[in-house]
């Protein structure tokens, strides 16, 4: 149950206790269970390494997403492999890890290439944060197999992903390996975004609602930036270059100038 539903349930409970609750409330509860889901956070499972370094990271992010934006999201993540027939039901894909992982098979490379070339989005999160080692080395190797003629480039501050909801000025994470996000551009869009700051580490809470990891060196502000980046990237995946539309440009320019 998300925070919004929880608060609603508590308030309805209080009203019911006072004998003031209308009968429709309980019908609404039934509908809530049937609420429309527009977004499912899918995490990629792969062979070797550690595909799930922060098992509790996604929930807080999705809670934050629903609290801040109009996106209705599934509260739990979906775990998918590249050979999962349901892979293309989840255009947003998250890959994380710390260590080396096995190369994708040729068919998996083709599948991911099609996924990314026709509207899918991949957010990669290096939980180790060691450039050139572990996850970083394996992920860059696989992306090179998928897009042999493309290289990662730094995502500039003016990129629509950096302003899809928040006007991001800083990149967060559990640690600060790079003050930027990298990406692979395909045509006018950027279907692959790669952060080495361990975003999942910053998002993760334990069962009791406590942060699992410290964010260094920036502390809670750095954590907040990690959430903002996560939300922005989800909205970017769902709206593409929407914030590059001419109608937005003067507004955003004015706000950035302040």
């Amino acid at each position: 149950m998300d925070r919004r539903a929880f608060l609603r349930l508590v308030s309805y409970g209080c009203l019911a206790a006072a004998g003031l609750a209308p009968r429709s409330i309980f019908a609404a509860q039934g509908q809530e269970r049937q609420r429309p889901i527009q977004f499912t956070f899918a995490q990629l499972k792969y062979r070797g390494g550690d595909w799930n370094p922060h098992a509790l990271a996604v929930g807080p992010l999705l809670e934050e997403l629903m609290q801040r934006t109009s996106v209705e999201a599934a509260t739990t993540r979906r775990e998918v492999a590249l050979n999962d027939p349901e892979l293309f039901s989840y255009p947003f894909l998250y890959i994380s890890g710390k260590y080396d992982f096995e190369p994708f098979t040729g068919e998996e490379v083709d599948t991911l290439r099609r996924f990314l070339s026709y509207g899918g989005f991949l957010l990669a999160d290096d939980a180790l944060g060691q450039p050139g080692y572990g996850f970083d080395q394996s992920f860059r190797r696989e992306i090179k197999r998928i897009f042999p003629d493309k290289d990662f480039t730094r995502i500039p501050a003016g990129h629509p992903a950096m302003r899809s909801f928040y006007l991001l000025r800083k990149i967060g994470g559990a640690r600060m390996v790079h003050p930027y996000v990298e990406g692979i551009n395909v045509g006018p869009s950027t279907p692959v975004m790669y952060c080495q700051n361990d975003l999942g580490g910053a998002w993760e809470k334990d069962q009791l609602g406590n942060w699992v990891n410290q964010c260094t060196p920036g502390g809670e502000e750095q954590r907040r930036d990690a959430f903002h980046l996560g939300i922005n990237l989800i909205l970017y995946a769902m709206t593409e270059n929407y914030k590059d539309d001419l109608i937005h440009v003067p507004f955003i320019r004015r706000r950035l100038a302040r």
Partner: protein
Amino acid sequence: MDRLYFVGGLSWWVIGLIALGALAMIAYQFIGLRRRLGVRRAIPLTALRAIVYALLVFFLLSPGLVQTRVTKLRRPLNLLIDTSKSMSLPGPSGKSRLDTVKEKLTAGDDPLIRRLERDYDLRVYQFNTALAPVAPSAIAQLEATGKGTRLAELLTEAGRDAGANAAIMVVSDGIANGEGRTGGAAPQIPVIAVGAGDSKGYVDLRLADVTAPEFGFRGREFKVDLIVQAYGLAGKTVPLYFNRGKSLIATKDVKIDGDAFEQRVTLSYMPKEIGAQSFSVNVPVQPGEAIADNNHKEFKVEVRRDKLRVLTLSGSPAWNYRFLRMALKQDPFIDLVSFVFLRTPTDVVDVPDNQLSLIPFPIDEIFLEEIKNFDVVFLDDFSYRSYFNVMYLDRVRDFVRDGGGLAMLGGARSFDSGGYADSALRDVLPVELDGKGRYQMDTRARGVLTASGKAHPITRLVPDAQANEDAWKKLPPLKSLNQILRARGETLLQAAPEGASGGQPLLTVGRYGKGRTLALMSDDIWRWSFGAVGAKESPQSHLKLIRHAVRWLAQEPMFEQVQIQPVSGVRAPAEKSEFIIQVLNDDYTPAAHANLKVEVIGNEGEQIRLEAVEQAAGEYRAEFTPAKEGAYRIEAQADLGGKAIGRDNKNFTVAFPYAEAEDGRPRPELLKDIAEKSKGDFIPLAELNAASLARAAEKLDRLAPAEIVERREIPLWGTLTTFSIILVFLSLEWWFRRKWGLI
């Protein structure tokens, strides 16, 4: 006249050797005779023998004699007199060009036409767009009424069967406007070109070569190029007016700084309204102008949308929006303005507004001002309830009523779930709402074509009917649906659960006022793009569906249900023109027995009603015979059982194929060119007289004499005479030898 010739039986070198041998023998003989008889007697004897040898060598060359006798003939001459309309233009004397020609040929005691009849085998023709024989005595009755001058073509025709050594004399002002207006290839026989008219006294101001685009785009400037020509008006400055309908758009001064003046002028205009628009350019008629009609030009430009302007309002970020946007953005003919509501009023943000990229939704600006500038509006899982008063939807209704396109896509905020049953859009949408329809999740339904869907352009993903059905069967199932009460318009797709052949309406289209509407009862069609890619199929079906839907909603001509077949080429006044109009039902099957209203709108706005006859199911024919030249528009509007089906219009031009009254300036240079290329002669009409005709005749004789030559060949060798001559010389030598005691 006799002429010697040699047939030659032996090679020259053989004859040369024989000649040398003969010389050697003569020399030997002379030496021997001188010793015996002395020089005085040796010389004549040797000479006689030398003559005999010379004659033998001469006859070895097989000489002959050619006798020639020449008899003069009357040369065939085709006299062509130009009777096109331009020959009616007055010259400096006030007489028309043709009258001057007639006077020149027929006046006087010994008229030139009589002389020509005497000197030539004369055939007279008048010509304009065709050749017509004329009796020489009827030249005085000729009138300049021809609609055009096919000079080059008719010269070729006149020369084709003219006969041996024939010539053509053409009397014309040189204005040629047939297919080979610049002269083209030279005629095969000599042409004596007589130039009528005087370009020195010619006064005319003319607009020529007006080049305007057939189509323009709203909000985009188009250019019109034209040439201003002036003769005999040097030093004047004339205004050039550019009008749209009867409104003056622009004016430009043209300074005429030469006698044969020509200046290219470019005008421009940015249309703001869609539709066929009439334009004209004109310059005032100047005193003494030969032709006033060429001071004015009209043309029509069909103003279209530059790009289809599409507005999308999406209730929240969603995959349906993502893939809808992708399809619209990839289309170069669509200009997309989209608003996605990233935050609801109940969402809480953790930063000040200035750290958010959200912009306020310009409600008044969109619904009160800008909506009319869009062609299609998409309501994509969007409910007005959280954002603005329901009254704003009245503007959306008016937008559709006035010709706009509206699409509502499904979702938890659409149709009944979005509260549209209580809005102005209730009657606009092609589906009926009762406020009870629910948004259903976790369904699994495929889009199945209905009979209408199989023919409708929106759902025609590929041209072949079977391939189209196969393409639809390949698309992934949808997992969410919006319930509606029932369809009001044409249902193109049904949502069929797995294994079923039909179900509730999934895609329905309709009309409201002048506009079109579409309802797609799902927010899950993004799977037809991305899901298809996952199944290793092409995402093109989704792309085409969106593009077709936008074009159909925007009433693009290609999706019109009433289509006038392309009207091409120029039609001539008084000639019957035929128009074919195709009418299709809402499901795009041929519409038989439709009520078709066809009108032609002329230059001055006059409306002429045409009768349309159905010649096949959905195919109608209308005929129109224009009375005069000008720019016209044909409009067709069809309804069936009182329900409007659609309309179409096309522009066409009515003009004579020859622009005889366009440019009346005489063209002696063309006539000179024809005369030169054909090796004939050019004579200005003023200089046409007996002397110039005699000079021309001499030139023709030098070129190809008109005579019969008889030739007789007489061989000189092998005859009794030649044998006798040799015998005489040998006998004489024998006589001298006997006399001088050598025998």
